[in-house]
């Protein structure tokens, strides 16, 4: 796993760009940036004071540890909607059974972007940053169904879900609004997907992780995983016996 303390950061402070330019820039090529150490709840841009607090937490996923069972997806739809559905899940696992490991699976989760294009795109404020937790989430009552947020997500598969049953946008809220769950969710509580994952392929951090176009750089595999027989090097290409000795 990436050591957050060693990442080098580029912050927005002092860049001399407007708010819109800044967000646009981040939304386009911004994922090449390294965003370490940005834990302040807001920051200054030249033309105005805005508050885009960082999220209080982030889901970490390791697709090389994922067994593709979709239990995380079912847990998400269950706790948020009381049903079992893959289409309503705010975390998505996609896989190709014929592809070679580790290119056979991808876990698609919201990264709680530091500069959320989905929030910026929303004309009504439905997609917003929660003032208490910093979680990027949807106030369904304000959603007019324009799907601007869905399309604004800069990732190749949008992390904003269009709920075709209720016709509104929704996204990962780190389980802070889970009416069908008797546990406290959110950054200071538990996350359903993380709890149920049978392999431990989903974790959580309060630190902003290193981002790239491929996602966070995450390796949740340890010596115990190697003992089962799976590789624990970052690329998943070294036999577990060899990598266990050096891990």
């Amino acid at each position, binding site marked *: 796993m990436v050591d957050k303390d060693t990442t080098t950061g580029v912050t927005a402070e002092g860049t001399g760009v407007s708010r819109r330019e800044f967000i646009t820039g981040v939304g386009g090529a911004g994922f090449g940036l390294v965003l370490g150490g940005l834990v302040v709840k807001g920051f200054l841009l030249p033309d105005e004071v805005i508050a885009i607090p960082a999220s209080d937490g982030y889901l970490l996923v390791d697709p090389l540890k994922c067994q593709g069972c979709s*239990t995380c997806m079912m847990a998400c739809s269950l706790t948020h909607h009381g049903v079992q559905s893959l289409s309503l899940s705010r975390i998505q696992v996609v896989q190709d059974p*014929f592809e070679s490991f580790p290119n056979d699976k991808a876990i698609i989760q919201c990264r709680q972007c530091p500069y959320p294009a989905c929030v910026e795109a929303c004309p009504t404020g439905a997609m917003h940053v929660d003032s208490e937790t910093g979680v990027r989430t949807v106030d369904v009552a304000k959603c007019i169904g324009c799907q601007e947020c869905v399309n604004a997500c800069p990732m190749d*598969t949008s992390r904003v879900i269009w709920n075709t049953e209720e016709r509104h946008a929704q996204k990962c809220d780190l389980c802070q609004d889970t009416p069908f769950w008797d546990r406290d969710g959110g950054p200071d509580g538990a996350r359903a997907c993380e709890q149920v994952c049978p392999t431990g392929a989903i974790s959580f951090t309060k630190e902003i992780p290193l981002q790239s176009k491929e996602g966070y750089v995450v390796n949740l595999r340890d010596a115990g995983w190697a003992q089962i027989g799976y590789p624990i090097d970052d690329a998943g290409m070294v036999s577990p016996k060899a990598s266990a000795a050096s891990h």
Partner: protein
Amino acid sequence: MAKDGYSGKILVLDLTAREHSVIDTGQYKQWGGGHGMGSAIFWDLVEDKNVGWDDPKNVVTMMTSPLSGTMVPSASGRVEVQGIGAAGYPIRWFTRSNFGGRFGGQLKYAGWDGVVITGKSEAPVWIDIVNDSVEFRDAAGLWGKDTQETQKSIWEQKGDEAHGWDNVGAARDAGRTTQRSAIVTIGPAGENLSSLGCLIHDAGNGAGQGGFGAVFGSKNLKAISVVGTGSVEIADPIALFNARMLAKDEFGAETGQPAPPNGPSLGRAPSPTLFFKRKAEVTMGPQACQGCIAGCRPRWSDGLANESSCQETGVYTTFDALKHGAHTDASVIATDLVQRYGINSYELARGLSYLYALNQMGILGSGLEIDTKLDFSTIGETSFAVDFITKVAMREDIGEDIAEGFVRAAQKWGRLEEDWGTGILDFPYWGYANHGYDPRTEVEWGYGSIMGERDMNEHGLNAHFWAVINHMGAGLDVPITAERYAEIVTAKMVPYEDDMDMVDFSTENIYSESMAKLVSWQRHYTRFWKQSALYCDFRWPDLANFAAADDVGMTGDGEPLFWNAVTGDDMTYAEGIELGRKIWNLDNAIWSLQGRHRDIVKLAPYIYQVPLETSLVGPFYPLAGKVDGEWTYINALGRALDIDGVEQWKDRFYTLEGWDLATGWPTRATLEEVGLPDVADALESAGKLGV
């Protein structure tokens, strides 16, 4: 829609007319799901139970359960397949198979609890299900393709190859998904009507036994594709989540860590059982059916034999190792090819051993009594594997005879009596291959198979064989005594839970009433909880489990806990088993109409004549048993079954079941007791009602 786990509709495909219709699931809810519904639908739709497997009037059911597509651990991904099978001897019974993956979940999300296949298409066809939309599509371009090519081709046609959110209809809110369509298909073996033909879904989910690949082939049905974007309604979401966490925290292995050396149970690590060894530079990742608590399959860094596990990976290892002194890519390529061609690997592996024995005896080979172009001097090489598997799939050369199954091939060759006597034809029950848990040792496997209609393939009791073996292999002592093991597992065997002798596998006990109780419990338990509720055989029943407190598994508490959370029912564990008894009786009624009689309910002759000397792991077959009244782990090798003892055991079993001792047919009293008076009427009309 009711919040009970059901989608509410069963899809009926009329291949002849290329039309579909709908059955209200409510008509069959009393059967639970899966096998129970399948048997009931078959009973209702197939007037002549003696219909041929390749007759358009044969009906195939593919049923899910309320638990399908839910996060119930290791119960979400199975689909039960039933109909008259292409395999089996001397009668091709009404039979079952089952496959995992994500097909069942997608079917539920599309709004269907199952698919009923009737008729026969005039030309090759595949079915394209997208939520409520059902299309019959021309499969001319798919016919001849292997299972992998077929699925990729369908994905390409449907635009599923690209990642991202896909709108499944023209309307904006028709539904969205990121998931590829789930496809079940046949390969060349099924197309060519080989009884070894499987149904294959994704890379390694197969419904192998019964020859349903050939049944699909006979109906000109190449594949069924389904994608759904809807939801499964749950009665008590909070209870479901908490039950899942209970299973994970209290009965599962520590997350992401090695598990205690359990046999099949909830307490396993997500690791495959591999019989072949791969090169060190080839790495693997885990892969599971939908909702599984611990997956059992890998995907490989070279993509070969993806999702293959357990016996599939051993289809060629013996001959590979004999030729090369170690496993090579030949084993892997053979496994990969079996999946691509859609062949039942059990039949193939046992059958190849038989052919090799005949070759060594100078009977089978080029220019010999049984003539074949197979070059046995190259057995163990990749080239032989490819040649053999291709011949079987294509019905070429000796593959023409093998297509009828190895027992029927032996009969055609005039060798059945002799080779069933010596045991070189290792197919002990109804013409099906020995699963490896031989009836001479693990008698419940043999008894359960002959009282059913195929190799039963149920590992619930077999789990303790593996638990002992796994501990021995790890250099560990088995953490519980045989007596404690017996105490734990028999406590869960409702309604016979007071009898620990049910798992005494000593020779003195294997024909006893206790052993009849064991088989009766297993037949009833599996017919409902495993094959109708669709809990997976590799994780359930969870009897003894060394990852759990006091080594006591979740079975008994777990099954109804999940069922009731999903359905809102108030079913007890025992009520599920009683429903299993009802389903089991309906199955026996169908078999009776097909020609079942006590006189043909028997194991192959060598089981009575030739003592078994080796197990899958060598000269030791550990099972719980009593010696001089003391519990211990006995070595069950070295015995054959006593034919009179087996007949006495049959008396005891039929008595427990309430079936006629002379014929084995169900009686009116029993059928009425389980709520099947109309079935009793039908048997009486056919002269097949027991007295």
